[in-house]
């Protein structure tokens, strides 16, 4: 089973990478851009998808400052 984990900075925490991208896009001529956040993507094959939450909590994300979302791809 292939899984994809999306990891994002928690709302309310300063996200300078997101802020930098949010500044850069209009400078290139793209209007109407707001609320940009930059995170991480981890993709993996797993035999037991029930372990994914635990993997996220322990290693893939830092729950103190990040939220994560698990997507199961077939």
């Amino acid at each position, binding site marked *: 089973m292939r899984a994809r984990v999306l990891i994002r900075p928690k709302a309310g925490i300063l996200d300078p990478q997101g802020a930098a991208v949010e500044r850069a896009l209009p400078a290139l001529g793209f209007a109407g851009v707001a609320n940009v956040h930059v995170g991480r993507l981890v993709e993996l094959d797993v035999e037991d998808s029930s372990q994914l939450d635990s993997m996220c909590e322990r290693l893939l994300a*830092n729950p*103190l400052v990040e939220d994560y979302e698990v997507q199961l791809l077939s």
Partner: protein
Amino acid sequence: MRFGVLQFPGSCDEVDALHAARRVGDAELIWHAERDLRGAEAIVVPGGFSYGDYLRAGAIARFSPAMESVIDFARDGGLVLGICNGFQVLCEAHLLPGALLPNANLRFTFRQVELDVIQSDTAFTCASAGLARLSIPAKHSWGRYYADAATLDQLERRGQVVLRYAPAHNFNGSLRDIAGVCNEAGNVFGLMPHPEHAVDALTGDGSTDGLTIFQSMRLAVEGARV
């Protein structure tokens, strides 16, 4: 007095930390794959890019066998100093509260910074009495200290904020200018600047203020022995 300095694949400043510790006592390197801390009375988790900073700084190092031993050592009251990447490892291992995030300016920055000593009676600052400020180099790209407001209030209340960046010296955006914190028991301490690079006037840009941290640890260990 024996220091043990951990060494991970990708550690950079572990030998610098080793030589700094040797100015104060004996010191040895402890390989990440070893569980035996070899009778160390204080542990230093050094700076660098352990495991390439892959995933998150310190995220992988915290699971190494040596760190598992260090966690037990800390729970038993042993002194643990985390420097820069070492601070990150200690936060990831939950030995210290909070997390280190990318610098607000998104850049690696190397600068000699001034730190205000907020708690001068900890096991890491007791030898710095008389020095209200420490001049120590900082060099990192992930050093912005973060904890939620309730935790920050608690840290301040309990005297766990040990060092703060002096005005105009906080280049990474750490909340409340926090440069170094200790745990509630006071035996684990992490800071982003590098005291091991301020122990010799010749290479320390004239400052040996960092030596006081190692000296404090020795005083604390020797005091505890009595």
